[in-house]
């Protein structure tokens, strides 16, 4: 495994690691919603500063954190061009019938920037929160929906399992890739169609092993007496501390400040 992926937990100790997962998840949700409301320069700036501060507090390796942005490279480009070509305004260049506007350029850049902030916030959450904690937090946050029939515990379990196997799957892709390269597979072909086809030798084995793994996991869970529908108790109980309350307050105040700045602009 040669890189850090979003969704990967980095075991360490920091102010962020010690926070209650419910607070972290609630905070992250709020912060991830904020960029959609904050369109002005001032509010975006304040928001960026706050995210940067949290990133420093998290003890996360900053370079690795920035590298997680690669995962949204393509969707980012797509958004950029979408805004570039569809925003009306002062024309910058006109290519046939399609016009590129100054406003479009700005809006596109802004969208990319916001997308990056979203990814950073999400990565900070998963870097500092173990899958078990995430599931626990999710279960607590979705708790009220359980009364209207949402299978909250099952959803939390599915999420835990999915997150748990992200690094495993990537490790497997790496191993199989090398194994097929050792058999002379050319996985770096320049022609797109050939490139897609050349990945068959990698993806078929990955799917096969994913299904086998799922079956084994199901058996292992049943063997340990796991029954989804039963009301289960927990080994670790969550307790809100004063630190958690303080953190919640900070996030709320910053959010209000961002919205306030937005109002002023």
């Amino acid at each position, binding site marked *: *495994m040669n890189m850090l992926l979003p969704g990967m937990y980095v075991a360490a100790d920091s102010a962020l690691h010690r926070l209650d997962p419910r607070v972290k998840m609630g905070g992250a949700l709020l912060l991830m919603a904020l960029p959609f409301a904050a369109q002005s320069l001032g509010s975006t700036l304040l928001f960026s500063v706050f995210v940067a501060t949290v990133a420093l507090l998290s003890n996360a390796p900053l370079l690795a954190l920035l590298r997680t942005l690669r995962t949204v490279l393509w969707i980012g480009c797509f958004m950029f061009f979408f805004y570039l070509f569809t925003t009306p305004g002062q024309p910058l260049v006109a290519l046939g019938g399609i016009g590129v506007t100054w406003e479009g350029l700005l809006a596109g850049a802004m969208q990319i920037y916001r997308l990056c902030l979203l990814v950073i916030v999400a990565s900070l959450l998963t870097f500092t929160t173990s899958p078990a904690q995430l599931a626990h937090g999710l279960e607590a946050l979705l708790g009220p929906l359980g009364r209207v029939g949402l299978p909250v515990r099952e959803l939390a379990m599915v999420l835990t399992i999915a997150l748990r196997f992200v690094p495993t799957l990537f490790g497997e892709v790496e191993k199989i890739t090398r194994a097929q390269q050792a058999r*002379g597979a050319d996985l770096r072909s320049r022609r797109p169609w050939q490139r897609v086809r050349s990945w068959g030798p990698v993806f078929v084995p990955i799917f096969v092993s994913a299904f086998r793994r799922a079956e084994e996991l199901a058996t292992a869970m049943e063997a340990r007496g796991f029954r989804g529908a039963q009301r289960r108790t927990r080994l670790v109980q969550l307790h809100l501390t004063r630190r958690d309350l303080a953190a919640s307050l900070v996030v709320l105040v910053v959010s209000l400040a961002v919205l306030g700045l937005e109002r002023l602009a």
Partner: protein
Amino acid sequence: MLIRVEDLTYTYAPGTPLERAALRGVSVEIGPGERVGILGRTGSGKSTLVQHLAGLLEPTAGRVWLNDVAAHGRTAAARAQRRRVGLAFQYPEDQIFERTVFREVAFGPRNLGLEEAEIVTRVRWALEMVGLHPAEMEERVPFTLSGGEMRRVALAGILGLRPEVLILDEPTAGLDPRGRRELLARVRDWQEETGLTLILVSHDLDELARVVERVVVLEGGRVVADGPARRVLSDGQLLRAAGLDVPQPVLLLQALREAGWEVRTDRLLPEEAVAEIAQARGLLEGRP
């Protein structure tokens, strides 16, 4: 082929909190036709080392030379040298992806750009080498085979490349004792028949004692011993320091020696130990 590893260092995930040095300054030289075992406990760097020999990993520091060409290079010369090295990963059956056994084994030879007739010849040869009947197996779906058969199909896929250097990473892991013995016997036969260089990664001492003539011991990413199998594998102190067991026959002979028997302790296989004890007993009772 001459393989030279010079001061090889490799670090996984550099610059992240998951950073881990797998190899720290490994130097080894392996000549043509040698049978070398790479021994070490889990996490000692064995698999990382052999992946470098196949040019699959780029050294963090140091070099790996295949006939004086850098193994990881992007030149045509480097690619040509790499093609002469065949590496079977641990649990090679995990890499099976084709619809039929024939297509699976043909994947490697096809990537070499061989003629169809040559591919067919090689696939049949490789299947026979691993003890499978080409006529029976060729059209079967690999995923319906037993674990042992899948392992053999996967190994045939590597043999079909006709490598000059064959690297097997824990080839018998997860096989039953009989499957293990058969596979090892075949490995020895291939080696004798073709004179290829054989590199066997294992932590099974009995397995190494039966197949290789030289053993390199890795511990913590460093080479802690490199020498004739008989010497290295009977050095209890060294093996224990590397977190490994001592072969049972060696333990028995050492105990006998301490009890005053006139026996040599560098007998690695049970049958060798039996012969040694029989001889010593003969001496004891005054028989030749």
